[in-house]
């Protein structure tokens, strides 16, 4: 493996780590907070209902937006750090 390949491989595994981390949060807010964990969140009241309802109808969507912008910002920075950005 030459220097160029090693650099490319490191870039790709950094990308995969970032994706896996982001998708864990993605699943936690929607499938977790919004669906599966709702019975345990009933004590946390939000405007006439519980936190699970909020995650299902608002919280997960807001988190998705933050995740995509964070990913875009981080990856566009990584592109440059690894010298793999477009000119």
């Amino acid at each position, binding site marked *: 493996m030459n220097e160029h390949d090693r650099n*490319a491989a490191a*870039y*790709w595994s950094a*990308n995969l780590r*970032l*994706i896996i981390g*982001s*998708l864990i949060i*993605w699943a936690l807010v*929607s*499938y977790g907070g*919004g*669906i*599966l964990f*709702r*019975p345990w969140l009933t004590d946390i009241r*939000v*405007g*006439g*209902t*519980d936190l*699970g*309802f*909020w995650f*299902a*109808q*608002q919280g*997960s*969507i*807001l988190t*998705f*937006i933050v*995740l*995509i*912008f964070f*990913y*875009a910002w981080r*990856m*566009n920075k990584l*592109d440059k750090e690894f*010298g*793999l*950005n*477009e000119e």
Partner: protein
Amino acid sequence: MSQFAINLIFVGSSFALYIAIAIWARAGSTKEFYVAGGGVNPVMNGMATAADWMSAASFISMAGIIAAGGYATSSYLMGWTGGYVLLAMLLAPYLRKFGKFTVPEFIGDRFYSKNARFVAVACLIIASVTYVIGQMTGAGVAFSRFLEVESDTGLIIAGIVVFLYAVLGGMKGITYTQVAQYVVLIIAYTIPAVFISLQLTGNFLPPLGLFSNHLESGMPLLHKLDLVVRELGFADYTADVPNKLNMVLFTLSLMIGTAGLPHVIIRFFTVPKVSDARWSAGWALVFIALLYLTAPAVASMARLNLLTTIYPSGEVTNPIDYAHRPDWVKNWEQTGLITFEDKNGDGLIQLYNDQSESYKQVATERGWKGNELTVNNDILVLANPEIANLPSWVIGLIAAGGLAAALSTAAGLLLAISSAISHDLIKGSINPNISEKNELRAARISMAVAIVVATWLGMNPPGFAAQVVALAFGIAAASIFPALMMGIFSKRVNNKGAIAGMLAGLLSTMVYIFLYLGWFFIPGTAAFANTPENWLLGSMGYGISPLSFGAIGAMINFIVAFAVSSVTAAPPKHIQELVESVRYPKGAGVATGH
């Protein structure tokens, strides 16, 4: 000025704007026709993607479905937005780097197989054609209610307008019309919502109003709504869902399906760079979220408004009488979307849940003989301004907004279909040596034919129009998304594995849907009744609905593709290099046709 004249001005001027864009944004090359020249600003593309994605179903139907189903229908909200996270991280940037014109083209090149490309074309056409039917019927509803024309005449007018900007401008014309359509539809959706939120909660931001106190009763809005629906025998609005497996799988199917819909993916081919594709996915979701955060507020507030219209005193034994029904009920009765039947002959409107066993005794004691007012889910958003007594220009705005949502999605779908025909079938297979000029002509002719077919399907919708949208998502989730993802993230999946995987995902999903909804949706051919007890795992209380099967189909696709690939030869070296090249943004350049 009459309401009709106001509606005509709003719809007419929005259509005039689209035609002006058509004349300004004509396509001169295949690159302009397929990917708008590849130079679309990422924020603009985000806006166009939002209009492309948000269909008549999002604009007209979704709030109505949530109003009727409450928390249990949150899958639509999470599913139709969460797919953008997958798109932004797993597909869009790499497919932009690949830099070609269509989704089947990537599958054909990556899996070095014309057959793989054909399977992808077939999946794309089935998914997109079924989807386009829903758009055209949605446009028909809006026309017949707001413009007092026969819905067929309305569809022909809509067909001509789309024809002008889609045939002349291709993706270039569609992109800039979608930007205009987004502006029209988001204003139309949010203005009535702001008014209603102010009226009910005093909060002018609907997503916050949803969790605020109801002004009249002083209790939280959702709590008030729970009390009102409970008193009429309905399940609580915020009630939890016992079958969580199905809710998870349904949400996942919508997410994967969203990310795998070709007409959404090709929008990301129009931005200049890989980094722009990433930003653009974020902007798309911001613009989508403006509607999707408002929709659940509209849903709960409209449900409460509807029930308090019928029971103004708050006493369920004291509803309004039919002779004094509000004007909006009269207006919508003419479309057949609201129907009244005085079952117990007392002249009053009894609206309650006559399906609830526990409520039957109460209803009988009161002399009720069944629910008397049937309100179609689809009218909730369209009738919202009338229910809330908003000024008549807001109604005109809603008419233009509903049409913008339907037409923007229809145009995106039609482009995906016509480019699959002219680029993947004609240029890719039948006549590879076709000149640039002739390919552009072929693209225009395919687009024109697709529009005529779509308009005809809108005028003669198959009886199964509602079910086919489930099919579109199932196919996108089970066939297209896994193939694209494996093409990028695995160097080992080969031609045989990809084809076997796509076919296994596609067929298993279609068979599962057909078992419950009838073979090819022909009534009477279903093997099992479509009820939760009959679904897979139904006997355990965890039935998997046909709508939720796309996620299972996707898993079958992944497993079959990896299994078949592992026992057959690895892809050749130049394919492995192709996979490498899509992973790194450097050297992306501009989209090319070969």
